[in-house]
């Protein structure tokens, strides 16, 4: 049973507009969340993270929002650029009890940024 869900398999957005990617989780013990970006034929690369003590983390064009009560996080990309076209994975971990750093991953959202 998937503990991390990305319910939108794909997202198309115009260049310059905002991309919003959503992720839901079921395990209330998760306290550390990551977003990875993956291009075809490459491994996922780390994009941004957020700890459960925060509700927002920003890095340049990328902002992650965490709503613990709803068990929901989202990634905002503003403005979207053609190079942002990739698959985005949400991942979650229980860092408090799991020191090995195992993550549960969502199924991914394919983002296509159109000119």
């Amino acid at each position, binding site marked *: 049973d*998937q503990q*991390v869900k*990305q319910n939108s*398999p794909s997202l198309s957005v115009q260049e310059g507009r905002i991309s919003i990617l959503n992720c839901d989780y079921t395990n209330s013990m998760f306290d*550390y969340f*990551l977003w*990875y970006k993956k291009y075809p*034929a*490459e*491994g*996922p*690369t*780390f994009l941004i*993270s957020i*700890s459960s003590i925060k509700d927002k983390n920003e890095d340049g064009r990328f902002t992650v929002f965490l709503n613990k009560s709803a068990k929901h996080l989202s990634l905002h990309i503003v403005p979207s650029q053609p190079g942002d076209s990739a698959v985005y*994975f949400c*991942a979650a971990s229980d*860092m408090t009890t799991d*020191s*090995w*750093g*195992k*993550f549960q*991953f*969502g*199924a*991914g959202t394919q983002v296509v940024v159109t000119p």
Partner: protein
Amino acid sequence: DVKVTQSSRYLVKRTGEKVFLECVQDMDHENMFWYRQDPGLGLRLIYFSYDVKMKEKGDIPEGYSVSREKKERFSLILESASTNQTSMYLCASRSPGGQPQHFGDGTRLSIL
């Protein structure tokens, strides 16, 4: 920059063969992981290792084994390959303490 290198980008094997996938990292990371990526399922953890000669099962270990004889190298073994093991295999490493995992570029394995 962390470098995680997987020995093959593409591999084609036959059912019943024993298959070895190799992964090497250059950052002295304690933890190493093997995932498979399938459409609609994301990344699923097969096995991980937290130290030399130490291993733990992930979520889908059936049909796989692993070996970690040196800190920098983590091998995934398909004991008797089957067609349902056709997939993209990704290796990752990290240091303990909240650091993100660093991934290799993956091995696209086809079992015929």
